[in-house]
């Protein structure tokens, strides 16, 4: 079974530029998550989708971050414009359902450096 795929793996941009990350979850997984992992910290949930609807985006900086999951499969996370503090690893995860005990499966992440 293929795991969660993410691209690109690395991205370097200058501040105020825009950037987009792509995620393809495990086939059949209804729930998709985007996490931000700043160096030295644990992952922090940015947004959670159930199929193509948003379940939780309470920690998404909506003035610069946006995400979509068209057709309930692939997802794209965008940052526009980027700030220095956005330098982090962006992890995508998916799970079969969205219950309390659901196991989340993580992709390899996209490492973003904003100069």
């Amino acid at each position: 079974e293929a795991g969660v795929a993410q691209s690109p793996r690395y991205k370097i941009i200058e501040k105020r530029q825009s950037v987009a990350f792509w995620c393809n979850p495990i086939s059949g997984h209804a729930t998709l998550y985007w996490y931000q992992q700043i160096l030295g910290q644990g992952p922090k949930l940015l947004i959670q989708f159930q199929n193509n609807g948003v379940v939780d985006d309470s920690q998404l900086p909506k003035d610069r971050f946006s995400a979509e999951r068209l057709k309930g499969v692939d997802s794209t996370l965008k940052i526009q414009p980027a700030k220095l503090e956005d330098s982090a690893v962006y992890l995508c995860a998916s799970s079969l359902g969205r219950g309390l005990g659901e196991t989340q499966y993580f992709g390899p992440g996209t490492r973003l450096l904003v100069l």
Partner: protein
Amino acid sequence: AQSVTQPDIHITVSEGASLELRCNYSYGATPYLFWYVQSPGQGLQLLLKYFSGDTLVQGIKGFEAEFKRSQSSFNLRKPSVHWSDAAEYFCAVSMMNNQGGKLIFGQGTELSVKP
């Protein structure tokens, strides 16, 4: 507020020695607890999880964890560490959000293994 604390930022053990990584949580209800491992440049991999029942949980790669409600702890253990266990370890608790669950992670413990 719900939170997870991993008191040790970095631990070094000798190969073959035993290991214990500490995790304390703050959560009002019965917690769903997880341990994930992250190798350099990789996503997070689930080691084990606890929902209910036996408080000693067995996981992959020879790891186990013990849930102690009285101490609000979920410490990870391994009797004999291998060099390949060097990685970052994250403890997480699942909490409710909009009829689903989301993970709250600790800040991680980096494990180094001496030959």
